[in-house]
């Protein structure tokens, strides 16, 4: 089966290509990229006016499967991914039970292969049961298909265990992904510490809770020589710490979420539980710093922290509402908005969404090179549409962006040559 995509603007940062041309896919693999390809294709797609990019890669999602399928499962989560132009994603291990063993990893991978609409690369836990006590069997988990380790959401408190985690993971050339947060400084807070929290009477989570932990993890990575990926940086300080770490030659990368570069803690007003997440929405100064980090390359990837929660878990008092929002279907337009606002270039945006995240977890995706697996997003950058929670593919509708006017969307998502989403 041959598919020919014609006349689109191909943006392939990994191969430094940005030009209008055609892409030929044969049996799920890209066989030719060039101008005026003539081939007997079974299917020809006219991509005039569209971007042809590698399928997007999201380094941070929660698919809730196994154990919390009422929020999301592998089928609905990957369907949401496809609708957002995402063809590859990682899923965090805080499932029930925790993904700390080969059986769970295998379940996730096989279920995704059989029924999913995107490639799923599991992240396994750093510690067994995410309890922060005993290291997971990292070697075996890697062999089973995991691409990194994280106790996302429940940061490892013990410095000693974290040190050993870096060393042990590096033994297998695997990165540690950290949710950097000093829980003793969080001390029961439920939103960013600052004037808005003071006015709303909500206990604040100070920026220093994130910065102190980020600092420790960078130093441990520096000390051990291990590889660190800092998840969802949200503060000015964290961005600075990563920037300084990189300058010193520490093996550190980091990601930022669309909500952290789009919204401030003002969004919490009215006790909007869909603006409650961890790390919390921060101040304008922090948002500006995250944007600057994206622009200057300090931040390596845009990732969603897609965290589906059931309506009942959000329809409660703010302080007891669950943390997190869904993000797979809003990541692309919110990222393109940074281009629209002149924060980053279109090529930067695509590489933050494709080739760079692929490199962090070491997967052979995120490129349109000849011979690469044909994971492709066709993006209409000019399409204006209204983002509506009720239209989401995800099982959960917890988003603060419902009703937003968006610009830019994936109109076709192709996974290994097969169309998995069409708008």
């Amino acid at each position: 089966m041959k598919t020919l995509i014609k006349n689109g603007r191909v943006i392939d940062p990994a191969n430094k290509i940005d030009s209008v041309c055609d892409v030929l896919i044969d049996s799920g693999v890209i066989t030719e990229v060039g101008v005026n390809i003539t081939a007997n294709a079974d299917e020809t797609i006219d991509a005039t006016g569209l971007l042809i990019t590698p399928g997007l890669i999201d380094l941070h999602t929660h698919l809730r499967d196994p154990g919390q399928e009422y929020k999301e499962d592998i089928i609905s989560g990957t369907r949401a991914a496809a609708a957002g132009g995402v063809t590859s994603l990682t899923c965090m291990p805080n499932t029930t039970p925790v993904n700390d063993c080969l059986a769970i990893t295998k379940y996730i991978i096989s279920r995704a292969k059989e029924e999913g609409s995107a490639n799923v690369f599991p992240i396994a836990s750093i510690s067994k049961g995410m309890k922060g006590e005993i290291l997971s069997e990292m070697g075996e988990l890697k062999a089973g298909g995991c691409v990194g380790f994280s106790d996302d959401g429940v940061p490892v408190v013990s410095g000693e265990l974290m040190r050993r985690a870096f060393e042990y993971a590096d033994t297998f050339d695997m990165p540690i992904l950290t949710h950097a947060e000093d829980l003793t400084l969080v001390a029961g807070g439920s939103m960013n510490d600052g004037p808005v929290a003071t006015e709303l009477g909500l206990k604040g989570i100070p920026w220093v809770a994130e910065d102190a932990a980020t600092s420790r993890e960078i130093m441990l990575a520096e000390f051990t020589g291990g590889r660190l990926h800092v998840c969802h940086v949200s503060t000015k300080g964290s961005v600075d710490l990563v920037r300084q770490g990189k300058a010193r030659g520490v093996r550190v990368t980091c990601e930022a979420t669309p909500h952290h570069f789009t919204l401030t803690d003002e969004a919490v007003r009215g006790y909007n539980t869909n603006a409650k997440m961890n790390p919390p929405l921060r101040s304008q100064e922090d948002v500006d710093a995250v944007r600057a980090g994206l622009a200057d390359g300090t931040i390596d990837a845009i990732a969603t922290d897609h965290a589906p929660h059931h309506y009942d878990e959000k329809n409660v008092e703010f302080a007891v509402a669950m943390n997190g929002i869904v993000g797979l279907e809003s990541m692309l337009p919110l990222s393109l908005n940074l281009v629209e606002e002149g924060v980053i270039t279109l090529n930067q945006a695509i590489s933050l969404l494709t080739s760079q995240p692929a490199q962090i977890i070491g997967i052979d995706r995120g490129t349109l090179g000849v011979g690469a697996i044909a994971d492709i997003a066709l993006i209409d950058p000019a399409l204006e549409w209204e983002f509506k929670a009720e239209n989401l593919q995800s099982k959960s509708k917890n988003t603060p962006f419902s009703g937003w006017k968006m610009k830019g969307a994936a109109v076709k998502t192709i996974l290994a040559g097969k169309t998995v989403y069409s708008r």
Partner: protein
Amino acid sequence: MSFNPKHILGIKNLTADEINFILDTADSFKEINTRQIKKVPTLRGKTIVNLFFEASTRTRTSFEIAGKRLSADTVNISASSSSVVKGETLEDTAQNIEAMHPDIIVMRHSASGACDYLAERLNCSIVNAGDGTHEHPSQALLDAFTIRQHKGDIKGLTVTIAGDVAHSRVVRSNIHCLNKLGANVRITGPKTMLPPGLEKLGCEVFSNLNDAITGADCIMMLRIQHERQGKTLIPSLREYSRFFGLNDENLKLAKKDAIVLHPGPINRGVELSSSVADGKQNVILDQVENGVAVRMALLYLVAGGEKLQDE
């Protein structure tokens, strides 16, 4: 003017004119409380549910008396705040109560925003009797009423609020209220008890009590919770009292005719020395008395008046 609020959720969204309208209305109701027959038929046939998810004696009693003096039927419900534990959400609890058709729910809850939450989901009127560390509008209004009673116009007065600001809903409502009425608001307390951004709310922040009360017209002392002692915020009540307690000595720094307010219940010997607590400058019992009139005014304004049609 006329003022027909559907709910009273906080001071933040009230205008100075609306606040003054409430205070004027309260002024008229105050007379009833000194009559032999302390009852008017204004809210006859109305049902008011005092839904308290958090223990409170004085606020609940004050609202109950206010409702009864207006001839409303008042019902007190003490509910458990830990909805998650029960498996029943706050919305479920409230909907159960609304099914009995109350006209007004007076609500106290430990979560900030709980009243806003219910106001969005129920048809009856909600009067906030304190939500978490967010707002306590009736307390701020009775404080303003008491200040007005003793000082005339609030405009231009210097009001110092001292104590555990971080954990006080009274402070937040008072800052909004006093600012709208044109007072200069000073805030003081140990830095562990001062949340960030108070200046943005329109206050001058002091870390020294003496500086904060020098030249003040009104001093509002906040209750220090015993359970805060020996934790991370203050080492001991003894030390707190020494540096942040009001006594005869430092009270002299305020204006000669300064008044001392306290939302109660007071801790004698902690935030207030006994001599100040019993002194002639304190107006704490006036506050309690005025509380009934202010709450009558709130219930009257919420119950009466043609409301805009709900969606």
